[in-house]
């Protein structure tokens, strides 16, 4: 096994290992990552003595929710990786941890540049015009003012809201709002891209355009992670899939195999 170097050749990786396959440059390394939330619980555990149950008051106790339990894998250049699993399995937490936005309680994530989540909703302000929000969203995503100016027209056109740019976003229909948010988020190029579900919302026409754009982003990005409940999208877009179940990585392999195993377990 090689020492820590700046070179491109990683040691053999089980998931990508097929006879004859070239070893690609690793872009994200997730190493035994645990994420634990500390939450105040107001309920009582069922096993407490019955006389306590008669009391009306509930006690607030600090509980630890072990959302991600020791997940490890390596992602490589050019890979599109689907992340599937039941609700509450820890997928979104894992994604935010891969992005470096949620610090792991144990273990670490390594990447060449911080991976970015596709989405900019948190920065936008509904009371302001679409125009102001394009600028704000673009700057929030890390673009320079010049870049924002360059991409402004393309964003407005993609979202198809040119006539409404000066109106506050709170007056937009939900479709217009969703289109604008997606258009802003998708205007940035990413090296490692993380997509968390249900982004291509909207009518059929927009759905097609946004899927196209995601494909473009995928082609320009080094690596893409896609969290989705739509197994069809995972099969369409990803060659590899991770099945997360209650915080652990249950299966890591070619997407058709993993999806089949997941579907079998759900029946």
């Amino acid at each position, binding site marked *: 096994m090689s020492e820590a170097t700046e070179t491109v050749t990683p040691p053999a990786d089980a998931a990508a290992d097929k006879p004859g396959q070239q070893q690609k440059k690793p872009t994200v390394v997730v190493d035994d990552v645990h994420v634990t939330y500390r939450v105040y619980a107001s309920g009582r555990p069922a096993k407490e003595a019955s006389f306590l149950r008669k009391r009306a008051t509930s006690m607030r106790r600090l509980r630890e929710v072990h959302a991600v339990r020791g997940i*490890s894998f*390596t992602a490589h250049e050019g890979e599109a990786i689907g992340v599937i699993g039941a609700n509450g399995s820890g997928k979104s937490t894992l994604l935010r941890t891969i992005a470096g936005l949620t*610090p792991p309680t144990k273990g670490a994530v390594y990447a060449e540049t911080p991976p970015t989540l596709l989405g900019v909703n948190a920065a936008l302000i509904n*009371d302001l015009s679409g125009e102001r929000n394009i600028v704000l969203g673009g700057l*929030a995503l890390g673009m320079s003012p010049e870049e924002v100016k360059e991409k402004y027209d393309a964003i407005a056109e993609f979202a198809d809201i040119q006539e409404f740019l000066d109106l506050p976003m709170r007056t937009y229909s939900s479709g217009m709002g969703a289109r604008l948010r997606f258009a802003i988020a998708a205007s940035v190029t990413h090296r490692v891209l993380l997509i968390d579900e249900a982004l291509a919302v909207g009518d059929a026409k927009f759905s097609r355009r946004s899927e196209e754009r995601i494909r473009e982003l995928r082609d320009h990005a080094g690596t893409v992670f896609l969290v989705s409940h739509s197994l069809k999208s995972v099969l369409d877009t990803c060659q590899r899939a991770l099945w997360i179940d209650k915080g652990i990585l249950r299966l890591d392999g070619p997407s058709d195999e993993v999806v089949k195993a997941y579907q079998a377990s759900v029946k």
Partner: protein
Amino acid sequence: MTSTAVPADRQQGLTKLGGRPTLGRYMTQLWGRRHFVIELAYSRFRSQNEEDRLGIGWTVLGPLINAAVYGLIFGVIMSSGTRPDNFVPFLVTGVFVFQYFSSCLSGGAKAIVGNMGLVRSLHFPRAVLPISLVLQNAFALMPMMAVLAVIVLLTGEPIKVQWLLVPPALLLYTMFNLGISFIAARMTIHVRDLAQLIPFISRVLFYMSGVFFSVKLTVGSQTGKAEILAMFMEYNPVHIYIQLVRHGLLTPDPKEASGAYATPGMWLMGAAWGVGLMILGFVYFWLAEERYGRE
């Protein structure tokens, strides 16, 4: 079940995510995001009263009404010898300048905990949030200063060269408020309950900073235990900054400098508090940078 890939070589030429950058690098990152800071501050300022009929007018109207109420109660109804001559501009200066501090304190406390959506979805040095908050309040201060200037002139005070002392005083005050904001922002993450105490801290400082009375006239001649309290009121930084602004705008009271006075010593303290707290607050905030996404 296929084995999970455990990389033998952890580094593989990649850097660990989420580590805290060095202070120098952090400041460089922050400088790189200055446009975002300004745009965020300005956008939030603009949308503050968007749905109200008077809109932005409330940034001035609110504190003005506040000042009128205090003026009525403490200047007319419960008046005493503690109010200096030309009480109106004295009072309005006090109210306007104090509210810059209180909004930075309460806003700073919410700077991170109230923006978890942003923190959880975008990469940026988290100091952007408290800085943007202080800048937002600074935007609100500008129209207030304009209205204050009008009130000062309307009550008979002349325009004078000393008015030029006000911008540097406000600059030092802004640095102080930045420090306050950084500290409040980080502390509320560790102990959320602190946010409950903020209104009381604000209240205490409001009564101790000579906003609607003159500190010198009220406690200037105390001895013994009360003298310590008097010193606290005299030298607390918020009072110092209020006095620096008053000194710039108003004529000092001929009777024992009771109204708008400011000694060079106060300027020094104002500078020390401003620079000192800003640096301390910034470092304190930066030290927890890698932890801000967790909750």
